[in-house]
């Protein structure tokens, strides 16, 4: 993974996340596993607009949102 990580920061990040979780992906399954992880991480920007703690609208729920880029 080293050579791939050096040219692909996202792959490096995914590798680091798996390592932190204690997961060693079998070599023959790395490509598909990383692709699945990329798809999952790509959804995260829909979850929550970045905001400071001071701006946190606790217990106020609004479903309208735009994707964060």
């Amino acid at each position, binding site marked *: 993974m080293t050579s791939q990580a050096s040219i692909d920061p996202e792959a490096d990040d995914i590798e680091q996340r798996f390592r932190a979780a204690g997961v060693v992906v079998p070599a023959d399954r790395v490509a598909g596993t990383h692709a699945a992880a990329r798809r999952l991480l790509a959804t995260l920007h829909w979850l*929550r607009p970045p905001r400071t703690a001071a701006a946190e609208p606790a217990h106020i729920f609004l479903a309208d949102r735009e994707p964060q880029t």
Partner: protein
Amino acid sequence: MNAPGPLHELSIAEAGRALRSGQLTSLALTEATLARIDALNPQLHAFVTLTRDRALADAAKADTAFARGLDAGPLQGIPYGLKDIYGTAGIRTTCHSHLLHDHIPEVDCAVEEKLRAGGGVLIGKLGTFEFAIGGPSFDLPFPPARNPWNPDHFTGGSSSGSAAAVASGMVRLAMGSDTGGSIRGPAALCGTVGFKPTYGRVSRRGVFPLAYSLDHCGPLTWSIEDAALTLQVIAGYDPRDPASADVPVPDYTAAMGRDLAGLRIGYTRRFFIDNPFLTPEVTKALDAAAEQMATLGATVDEVDIPAFEVFDACAQVIMFAEAYAIHETDLKTRPGAYGRYAYQRIVSGAVLSAADLVQAQRLRRELTTAVDMGALRTHHALLAPTGLSTAAPFSDFGKDAARWGGMLTNPFNVTGSPALALPIGFGSNGLPLGAQIVGRPFNEETVLRIGFAYEAASGVSRHRPPLDELSKAA
């Protein structure tokens, strides 16, 4: 004794009437069911285990009960199958995985307890995507189920064997599970009915979990009435399922047969019309279904719900976080025991953080509030697509896990709403198209009423898969 037509085409309701009138015995029905499975299963791979001897014995018991005037309910004497994640005492329950290939539970799951107490006849266990999530894999103990409308195409999943078995007339009832659409997706792609009741309506005790807070159990059947009859038997509070709801169970068939006058149905057209996976034939079929419901007396108008991408993000994060938590030890210690698809998909949950899961749970509450206090406050039910195209061919699936797009089912796992998948037509390739009717929490009867009226008026379910050639090849 004159048998009432081809037995594999009888609905549960029709078979029940024949059983009670003495026109038919459960033993004859069960023998015919086993013969049809023997003829078709080698090509369709719906069943992974048959419980032949037990089925014949239980059928004989049902006949004895009828002879004595004992009637345990609408499923007495009716053969059925269970997705192979439903735990069954003394019967192998594999989750379609090498990991549990020899797993034999000691106790029945709650649904099996109810079906058995109701006099049903368990025929066997049905194939699934591995652990209800992998995909149509060829590296598992059993081959993937094939679509009865064209065996070169997959069934959808994960209740793949359940949909194939019902669509091919092997059984009239197959139980499935639905975490992101695993009942409604295969039902739509195989042209059957599939019903995900409200979260908490049917106990999941003893069913192998995919994601605790999104899992639902429900039936796949050929007709809406059969789904209602099944729900009548399996619904109800179970204190041993932490998510089970102590809510009264109504008579699900009571409102059937009425027109749709007085109902307001929200058509979620703007929810899917810009989706890149949408095919024109799905739009046409859904527009026609909306018009049909209006003709039946409902007021149908367009409504808005939050964007699919927001629901999908919420559903994906919660599902994979929970699934990873369930499988973490086995994923780390024996990854090779999983097929490629299931491994790659489930282990991806390891990259999520605790904060990601918390944000998804907060969003879930926002989304549920937006639907329940929005479109489902002003309307009795919603009309939406299940999938945006017909079933893909097996050749579309490669070596590694991929997500096939165009299923719009997981929003209603996020909200926990009752959602009924039903066929609405066919694509130009002859494969089925489907819609879903979504209701207010614990108001399954309105959803079933709409489905029943539409089914009768549209006539779509009168079409059957072309299986003669498969039968002859057996």
